[in-house]
């Protein structure tokens, strides 16, 4: 066992330093090539083995555009504010979670899709349920968490910031919808998440890196064909639907290159964005 591995595995010592000549012990199993392009990042990828969490209104089981759901839970709080996680027998209370799941499925056909329902049990307390749901999802260790929603409550800003940072260091990529109204909302503005706005083009694999954040990427968000409750298929517009496009593309990258950190995935997304890649196609 190398020094570095021994160091990292020693629970009594924090892994805050790297001994001399131990760099090889933490080398990527599948190192990035000199040129990162779409062929390297995406070609042949299906999302297989990547666990994508849809933190939303639930997902309708057996929808043809979504297919199999790996798990579904609902989040609630008891009278003392403790988190209750129960199997979700309701499904989708609105249609929105099903819609997001279908966008991910349309890109990453073999990704594991998990539903964590945080909406649909009344508006009161919905901010606390959102925080509890995100905490559950981060603790669970999903590879990607899709958040096509946000809160404007400042009291939740700090705790969401902490959760976003925790996810970032635990290799959980949070992909969050940017708000396109003149209000402050969370968690999309945090740099530890990937924030997504919409572009008007019709290709779900086309996306742009924004040189002027806080919105970091623009993905397809106009007239998107999505699943809806009742087995329906409709067209929809909004950053809500651009966000799962980036979640799906991130799932493709992670299925082909497992183990990348959120920083590395964001770097790969930047390098293959249509306005960044040398050939203009990513």
């Amino acid at each position, binding site marked *: 066992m190398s020094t570095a591995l021994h160091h990292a595995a020693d629970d009594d010592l924090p892994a805050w330093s790297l001994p001399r000549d131990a760099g090889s012990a933490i080398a990527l199993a599948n190192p990035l090539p000199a040129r990162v392009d779409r062929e390297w990042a995406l070609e042949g990828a299906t999302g297989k083995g990547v666990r994508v969490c849809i933190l939303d209104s639930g997902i309708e089981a057996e929808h043809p555009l979504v297919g199999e759901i790996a798990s579904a839970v609902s989040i609630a709080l008891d009278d003392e504010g403790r988190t209750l996680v129960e199997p979700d027998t309701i499904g989708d209370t609105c249609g929105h979670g099903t819609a997001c799941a279908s966008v991910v499925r349309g890109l990453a056909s073999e990704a594991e899709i998990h539903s964590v329902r945080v909406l649909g049990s009344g508006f009161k307390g919905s901010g606390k349920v959102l925080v509890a749901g995100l905490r559950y999802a981060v603790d669970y260790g999903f590879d990607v968490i899709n958040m096509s929603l946000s809160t404007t409550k400042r009291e939740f800003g700090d705790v969401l910031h902490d959760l976003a940072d925790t996810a970032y260091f635990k290799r959980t990529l949070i992909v969050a919808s940017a708000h396109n*109204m003149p209000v402050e909302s969370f968690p999309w503005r945090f740099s530890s998440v990937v924030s997504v706005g919409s572009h008007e083009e019709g290709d779900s694999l086309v996306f742009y890196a924004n040189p002027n954040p806080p919105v970091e990427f623009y993905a397809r968000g106009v007239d998107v064909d999505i699943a809806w409750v009742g087995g329906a298929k409709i067209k929809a517009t*909004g950053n809500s639907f651009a966000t799962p496009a980036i979640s799906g593309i991130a799932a493709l990258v992670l299925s082909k290159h497992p183990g990348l950190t959120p920083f590395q995935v964001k770097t790969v997304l930047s390098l293959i964005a249509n306005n960044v890649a040398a050939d203009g196609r990513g």
Partner: protein
Amino acid sequence: MAEDGRLQAAVAAGVLPSEESFAQLLRSIVVVARAIFGAKGSSVFLFDEDTDELVFAAVASDEEQELVGRRMPSSQGIAGWVLSSRTPLVLEDVRSDPRWARSFAEGTGYVPEGLMAVPLLYDEEVLGVLQVLDRPQRSTFSLREMELLGLFANQAAIALSLLLSARRAREELAGDGEAAAVAAVAGAVERLEGPKREAGLALLDALARVLS
């Protein structure tokens, strides 16, 4: 100081906009929203924190005024999702969702093909949801329309917030004899005209000097 603040609030309440102004503003919001987008309909739901419900507060068309005042659970349907997620949405072909179509038909007697829904956000509060129904179909939806909807909703939310504050101030003062009397005097003077108004203001001025 607290007493001063309460009485000042009472004076303010005496000249605050009325419930009638509130209804006029809500109606104006939906009429203007419908006009901006050339849509067939528009409606506003307000969030009632006490009951955790959405209240159908205004609708643009004359035929559907009887719907005003209807209530539904705060997390139901599109409006409920938009309220909870604070995120705008545009949906087309919604008739293909039978559950959605039924709930809409039961509520309004009218099933739209498409809708835009946007939260009414003021500061960190969400006051309700504005919906625009059946805007003209175009080959491609424009993100500028989405941003226009957001800007208009922001303006509407600011105006609504002011009137909601006024409504709360009036409710606070209701039943409080001392403060209500001051509010009533302020309101009465506000409504006077001509020499009577001048006399009323002089009387208040004299009263202020005697009591100060």
